[in-house]
């Protein structure tokens, strides 16, 4: 199964907070909701940074502010302090709060865990957007409308 994601492959944010805000700007939600989501993700990071592999961070949470699993992949050439170690690849996702969403959330965590276990080094070192997405089993969401 391929997950549909949004991407930003030239992140300009220099800190964890800035990068999370930058990636959340890709979400199709309003400014206020975005601010609340940034707050929730920040809380999650403060109680334990989500660096899941050298060079890869996985900020995530579940929230009533989204109605479907929303995934954004970001990449920084210079690296982002997260905050103790630098990461260059950020996979941010927010799952909705629905009856079966803990299972959906856990299933996606399982998908990511499997890919990182198998291809973690390759993902962190990948040279192109297409390579990262292929390694993660993602496809880009069409920006319609």
């Amino acid at each position, binding site marked *: 199964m391929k997950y549909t994601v949004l991407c930003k492959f030239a992140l300009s944010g220099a800190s964890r907070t800035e990068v999370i805000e930058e990636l959340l700007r890709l979400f199709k*939600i*309003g*400014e*206020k*909701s975005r601010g*609340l989501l940034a*707050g*929730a993700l920040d*809380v*999650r990071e*403060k*109680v*334990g940074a*989500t*660096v*899941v*592999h050298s060079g890869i961070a*996985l900020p995530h*949470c*579940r*929230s*009533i*502010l989204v*109605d479907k699993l929303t995934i954004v992949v970001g990449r920084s050439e210079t690296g982002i302090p997260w905050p103790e170690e630098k990461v260059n690849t950020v996979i941010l996702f927010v799952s909705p*709060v629905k009856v079966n969403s*803990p299972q959906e*959330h*856990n299933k996606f*965590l*399982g998908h*990511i*865990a499997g890919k*990182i276990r198998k291809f973690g080094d390759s993902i962190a070192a990948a040279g192109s957007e297409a390579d990262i997405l292929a390694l993660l089993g993602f496809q880009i969401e069409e920006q319609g409308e």
Partner: protein
Amino acid sequence: MDKQLEKLISLHDLDVMIADLNRKDIRKREADMGLHTEGALEELKELRETYCKSINRKWRGLYNQLTKHYGNAVVPALMGRCAGCLTRLPTAVCSDPERNFKIHTCPTCGRIIYWAD
């Protein structure tokens, strides 16, 4: 958006985070990825206390009561309906552009409603 409503939404998301970290399957999955959640749970609970103190007593009481009863106290309005019980919400409220600047509750289930911006 009403400040108290913002706080109630944040409290709800925090409660979801705490509930997730209390789930064995999610905790195991996070631990498999090297994410340490033991201390996190305690910190989140402390943070919850702080959040609660910043919420007006009336809304905090309602939130706790609804959470106890339904499991979720805050829900979005979806196509003019309460996402918790699917009751159609009053048209006058739904069409009011300032609807998030006041806390509204579902006339049937009493859950706190917000409109996605």
